[in-house]
């Protein structure tokens, strides 16, 4: 395709990408370098139904002048990135200087909010992604081999977890694992331990979130693999049968190599999606035991009366950097294959 034709086709989506993806990211990056102006406080008397008190309040007129002068706030450079709520350089240096052994270093770093969230996010990404690919592949194989008249309904039901809104899906499961819910009560009966609670123990909460993640995303992998299975060359499969290959050997040596590019694609999508895990943490009220980077952003923007934009922006940028690092190996492989072909 000549470059000119290519440009003619691509420019609308390029424009949309610049407007709706590149510019917002730049603006978030810019915001992450700033913090709020120093607040001008005045002591005032505040009276209400419960009496009068001398309290501090913000001098809003003076603040308005400051903001009109410099709307972005105070320049803070990378200060927000390195503070205790993010990369916590000072805290980590201190931890290394004052800890006795590796376990103590680990526990103390795990106690820093950013690293706590990062560990869960990474664990979620690297446990859920492969399980989704494996489970999706198995479902696709099974569906592909069932009688034709059953396929329609089975495909529909397999897709349901993906159709359900993530937040609703997690709420449904959340009520099921309640100690009065069907799964929670069944587990208590099974292990005859009335104090067993999937919601209370941090480890079980993690497991619950992983299970939910696999449940929610497996249909995506299934659909992609199922479509791929329809294109596996039948002659190769037949010749493998003639050579005496068992069912497993046909899957292992014909189907899997053939579907490998699809697995890469799913891995890419899932790595990106899972790294941004958020809804289940809200749905399962799991913030006590598990927080993710996206949850930190949400918390900065929503928890307090006044949002912390700089802090949220810094976490957003760090998330983007995380996604890029995660995808780098996969992208590099694709790039090499592309170069080989041309």
């Amino acid at each position, binding site marked *: 395709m000549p470059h000119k034709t290519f440009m003619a086709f691509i420019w609308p989506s390029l424009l949309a990408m610049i407007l709706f993806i590149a510019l917002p990211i730049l603006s978030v990056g810019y915001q992450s370098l700033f913090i709020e102006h120093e607040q001008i406080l005045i002591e005032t008397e505040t009276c209400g139904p419960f009496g009068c008190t001398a309290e*501090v309040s913000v001098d809003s007129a003076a603040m308005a002048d400051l903001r009109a002068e410099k709307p972005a706030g105070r320049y803070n450079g990378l200060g927000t990135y390195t*503070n205790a709520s993010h990369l916590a350089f000072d805290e980590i240096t201190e931890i290394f200087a004052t800890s006795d052994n590796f376990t103590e270093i680990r526990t103390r770093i795990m106690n820093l909010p950013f690293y706590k969230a990062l560990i869960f996010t990474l664990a979620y990404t690297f446990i859920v992604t492969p399980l989704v690919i494996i489970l999706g592949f198995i479902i696709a194989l099974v569906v592909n081999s069932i009688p034709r008249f059953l396929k329609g309904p089975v495909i529909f039901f397999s897709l349901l977890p993906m159709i359900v809104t993530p937040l609703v899906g997690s709420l449904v499961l959340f009520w099921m694992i309640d100690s009065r819910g069907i799964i929670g009560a069944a587990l208590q009966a099974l292990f005859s331990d009335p104090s067993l609670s999937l*919601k209370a123990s941090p480890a079980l909460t993690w497991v619950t979130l992983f299970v939910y993640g696999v449940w929610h995303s497996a249909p995506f992998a299934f659909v992609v693999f199922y479509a791929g299975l329809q294109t596996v060359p039948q002659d190769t499969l037949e010749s493998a049968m003639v050579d005496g290959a068992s069912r497993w050997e046909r899957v292992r040596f014909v189907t899997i190599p053939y579907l490998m590019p699809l697995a890469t694609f799913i891995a890419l999508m899932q790595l990106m999606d899972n790294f941004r895990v958020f809804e289940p943490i809200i749905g399962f009220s799991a*913030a006590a035991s598990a927080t993710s980077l996206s949850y930190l952003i949400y918390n900065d923007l929503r928890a*307090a009366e006044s949002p912390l934009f700089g802090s949220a922006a810094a976490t957003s940028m760090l998330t983007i950097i995380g996604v890029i690092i995660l995808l780098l190996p996969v992208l590099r492989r694709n790039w090499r294959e592309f170069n080989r072909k041309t």
Partner: protein
Amino acid sequence: MNFKLKSTVAAGVLLATAGGAWADCGIESGSVRILSNDFAALHAVAEWAEKCASATVEVTKNQTEEHKNVQVPALTTNPASYTVAVVATNSIVPLLNDDLIRPLDEYVAKWGDQLLDSQKIVVDGKIMAIAFMANAQHLQYREDILSANGIAVPTSYEDMFAAAEMLREAGVMETPISSNFMPGWNLAAEFVNMYLGTGNDFFEPGSAKLAIDNADGLLVLENMKRMVDYMSADWVTYDSNSTKPVWEAGEVALTIAWGSRAGAMIDESGPAPDIAKATSFAAAPTIGDNTIPSAALWWDGFTIAKNISDEDAEASFRAMMNGLSPEMMAENLDAAVWLIDGYEPTKAASGVIADLQAGARPYPMLPYMGLLHTALGDNLAEFLQGKESAEQALADVTAAYTTAATEAGFLN
């Protein structure tokens, strides 16, 4: 035929009187746009404000739990999207900080005869909001279970733990206590309640420097830990909505709950009439050797936006005066602890009134309190789960608060 005629006439008279009642607002023209939280008492107030609507007066409302996130952007535009923002002790702060609401003195002088002085929220000599209801957490208990086991109504946390221990040993209940301990806003509110109960202050006087890293802070945390010992393992997910069915299932005998929820708890047409009948309220327990209830007092009130025309502002104030009328209160006695003149407390209000009378302290209306609330909500769960020490939890809170307050410009 005759009967039909009579009823038509009667209906006509009814309509005429109703029309007369509307005209009572007496507003010539203007637009009233109300933004508020979403619960029964506020529904009643907005509904009565809406009665002022006429051909020339427009009254609309948006009642949503998202109001806190909507209000600042909505009132920043000129003209503001809403003329009335219904706020509470904490949510008025961002409006004051950004100078988005107007002083009400002029309107109070002209149209506010019905208001008590205690309803006026005065900041720096100017009336910035009109409070109409109070809220606080109180002790909610099962009268039947306590008396059957010979337990007096607890007034201190020590009494409460003793009562819980007795119930556990008698085999009545394994986990007799509940409270809104879900990490985040709820858990922080419980810390704030108890810390206020110690009589100590959160910050060094006149500054945003945190001062909870002390013996009282540790006392509160130890107290919270002891509560968790008597609560179901699911406490990490407990908020007002999830503790209600647990109460109605009869699995709990003592709970620290919100006063605004009390009406629903004793509603005998609810799902558990027997338990509703046996539910009573008392002041929140005291902590340690202190004598004031461990409960923060909150008020709910309304403010008028700055960026609107004076005509709309006056119309809004007058419509809200109708919303706070004694007639509205008479119809909704059980919906709240009203601060309106002539209010007679009902059973649902008894806990909050007891808090008030015993000298409970108000939730601090400080510009940086919200940041501390968030820091508390995020950093206490691990201590309560037994994963870290109380000292570490307080250190984490201090670190999180200091970082946030520095970014927000309150600390250097």
